């Protein structure tokens, strides 16, 4: 009886670890979607601006680079949560 209880407790612990890993992976994946959409919007609008006003391409690229980097910070937050949650 004691053996069965020990086995059940061990398996429950392993299952919890597994669920934690799945949750962390799902969280990271979901956190990466938002910045992906954001970067797409930033780059799309930057290309549109460069096509309309080629003379301001340098300025637009500067803004685009910073916009991409700021948006990526969201994905990094998701990544940090992922490594902190990992068992």
């Amino acid at each position, binding site marked *: 009886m004691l053996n069965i209880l020990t086995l059940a407790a061990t398996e429950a612990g392993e299952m919890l670890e597994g669920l934690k890993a799945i949750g962390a992976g799902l969280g990271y994946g979901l956190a990466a979607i938002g910045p992906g959409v954001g970067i797409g919007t930033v780059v799309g609008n930057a290309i549109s601006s460069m096509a309309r006003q080629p003379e301001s391409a340098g*300025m637009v690229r500067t803004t685009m680079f910073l916009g*991409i980097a*700021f948006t990526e*910070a969201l994905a990094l*937050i998701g*990544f*940090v949560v992922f490594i902190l949650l990992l068992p």
Partner: protein
Amino acid sequence: MSIKQELEEGTMETVSEQPEKRIANHLALRALWVSPLFLVISAIGWGLSGAISSLLALVLVVFNFLTGAAIITRSVKISPNMLYGSVLGGYVVRLAILTGVVMSVRSFDWFKTVPFAMTLLVTHLGLLATETRYISASLAYPDLKPTKSKEIR
């Protein structure tokens, strides 16, 4: 004076052709300046392991900035479609590299999660926030604000 002569004598402005590269280099230099602070804080809190983890985070942040800028610089010369595709693809690849590096070192004893995470986030956001103070983003100076040496030119 021909363009070649101007380029050779350094009187012609060429840096504006690659604004993102210039900003990324400036960010990398700033990261080098602030790195001792993070290393010392991590070393005090978590010892040598913390300092190494913090150093890894700094290297990854700088790598992220430089690679992002290099991708834009290369692809913008080809076509807008290439720029769009490579920026989005580069985002995925850079995240994959970051994840791969961390997943491969997290089993080592010297890897401490907390100083790594702290340095990664604070450096990335802090450097970007600080960099906005140095950005001019005007037609004459599309990247960084002009310095004295640049004004003389």
